[in-house]
């Protein structure tokens, strides 16, 4: 209180002294410089990708000289298009397959974990929660190394391949539903549950009749994040794939480009990944808005939740 009055007392004469020296500027003027900077950033971050998408439609091998529009790298070329090249084709299938499998396992596992940990309490629960958050920040390469060794040296029947990829990706992604659902449980408070329990509901009834409807948006958002996270994942699948039948798109792009076999077909593959992710994002946004209709919260909240920055 005293400091505030003091600052004001000092500041007011200072401002009038300055006014004499230079014309008065509107203190709430729009920060054009910052806005320009932000636009520059956005151009820098998005235009290269737009150009890469454009070149996936190039009617030629070049990735830097435009030779006209064509669908040849998607399906028109009988040999090198995504549709006809068996490796490219397999990569698309593998990515979709991994995303579906991993989402189906991860979301129930993570949601049950979050609920249980949040209500159970005790040492075991907090240790497990600690581990789960740790899995969120461990560098993916180190986690990948651990997974590589465990599947090649200990759980040898699993070996490398799709199963190893799924198991690793589930562990890597389980913190999404677990963190988001826990965050939602905190903001929800416990009044509804306590009311239901007071009226005689058993915990499973509470879970089904009270928690499930309230948590549905959070669960949905985490499913979207897991699904798109698996589409984009690279390090784990790079270390755990064993042949072209279980190599997803990200790894295929990397290994081809690295081996000097780049070309517009890779851009086409990248564009397919991009379109898949955007479709998931749009479904996620619309679905989340639909599920949270009638609640306080805005488009902005839905956007940031779908991008995973709430938990």
């Amino acid at each position, binding site marked *: 209180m005293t400091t505030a009055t003091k600052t004001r007392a*000092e*500041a*007011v004469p*200072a401002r009038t002294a300055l006014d004499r020296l230079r014309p008065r500027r509107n203190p709430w003027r*729009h*920060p054009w410089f*910052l*806005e320009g*900077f*932000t636009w520059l*950033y*956005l151009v820098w*971050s*998005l235009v*290269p990708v737009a150009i*890469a998408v454009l*070149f996936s439609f190039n009617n030629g091998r070049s990735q830097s000289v435009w030779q006209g529009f064509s669908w040849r790298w998607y399906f028109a070329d009988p040999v090198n298009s995504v549709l006809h090249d068996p490796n490219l084709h397999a990569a698309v299938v593998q990515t979709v397959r991994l995303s579906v499998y991993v989402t189906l396992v991860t979301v129930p*596992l993570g949601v049950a*974990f979050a609920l*249980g940990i*949040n*209500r*159970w309490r005790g040492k*075991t629960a907090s240790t497990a929660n*600690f*581990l*789960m958050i*740790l899995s969120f*920040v*461990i*560098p993916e*390469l180190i986690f990948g*190394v*651990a997974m590589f*060794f*465990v599947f090649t*040296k*200990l759980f040898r029947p699993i070996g490398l391949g799709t199963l190893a990829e799924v198991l690793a990706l589930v562990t890597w992604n389980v913190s999404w539903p677990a963190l988001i659902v*826990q965050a939602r449980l*905190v*903001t929800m408070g416990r009044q509804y549950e*306590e009311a239901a329990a*007071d009226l005689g509901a058993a*915990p499973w009834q509470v879970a089904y009749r009270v928690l499930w409807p309230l948590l549905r948006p959070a669960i949905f958002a985490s499913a979207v994040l897991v699904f798109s996270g698996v589409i*984009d994942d*690279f390090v784990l699948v790079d270390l755990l794939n064993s042949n072209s039948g279980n190599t997803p*798109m990200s790894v295929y*792009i990397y290994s081809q480009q*690295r081996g000097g076999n*780049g070309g517009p077909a890779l*851009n086409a593959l*990248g564009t397919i*990944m991009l379109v898949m992710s*955007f479709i*998931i994002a749009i479904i996620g946004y619309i679905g989340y808005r639909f599920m949270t209709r009638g609640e306080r919260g805005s488009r*902005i909240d839905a956007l*940031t939740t779908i*991008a*995973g920055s709430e*938990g």
Partner: protein
Amino acid sequence: MAQGQERVGPGRRGQPKQKEAHRLFWAALAAPGIIWLALLFIVPFYAILAIAGGYLDLFGVPVPVWNPLHWSTANFSKAWHDVAGSSAFVGPTILRTLVYVALASLIALLIAYPAAYFVARFAGRRKALFLILLIAPFWISYMMRMLAWIDLLQTNGYVNKTLSLLHLIGQPVNWLGGLGFTVVLGLVYGYIPYLILVLYAGLDRIDPALIEAGRDLGLGRVRTFVHITLPLSRQAILTGMLITVLPMLGDYFTNQLLSGTPGTTMLGNVIDDQLTSSGGVLQGEGAVFSILFLLVLIAPMIYYVVATNRSSRGAT
């Protein structure tokens, strides 16, 4: 509150037993996740230790040793030899990794903060539009974004064309031929979307009333920022830096795609190469480096976990 309700009415005598059943229910719900983490998170890290403490068989294949009492130090001394010995190649690589990551994360912060600040504070009614554009890279695969730059940076690519059109360069520059500059910018480009989202979330949470109060009391724009906004966003800066620096340190693909020459090798490349070495001769050493890497990073990681835990459990 709950205790007050327990005392109501005689019909609740079965409470302790019921409470125990409730506890069991929640424990059972958490159990699959806990078992999963034990088998596929704890055990794998133990496997790294077992490989690091193991030995090579006659064919040069690494054999894990599961009993800690029988661990050998062969891999550790080999690793030490590569870090500091006469033909050491890992020492300089570690130094290079630190320099690249420090530069990249600093540049990323300098770019991300103003942009996040603008969108959080001044975007007004266009906030949703700006947010969509900020979030978009988050949905574009990392590989696609690297591919985009590989296209642009080719010798006959658009970057060289633009620069020579502006007469800034005489000869086309071979950007992808092993320049540290390209790798650092690649890292910035790759990881900045994650940083920007964390910063945006942190800046958006600041109560505008605090900033307005500062302005009303006569602080200029700069001083308001330095004395109010910046201190209030310190937590977001820290988390954001962690979330970018940790994966950058383990990155091997950015550098491999944008340069691929030994002159820009990072620690991640060393581990990746050792893991995929033919027959796995170097896997033991790779395991040692993974462990050392983890040990160095354990403090910042635990800091992150504690911070997250505090905010995710919140008031409960």
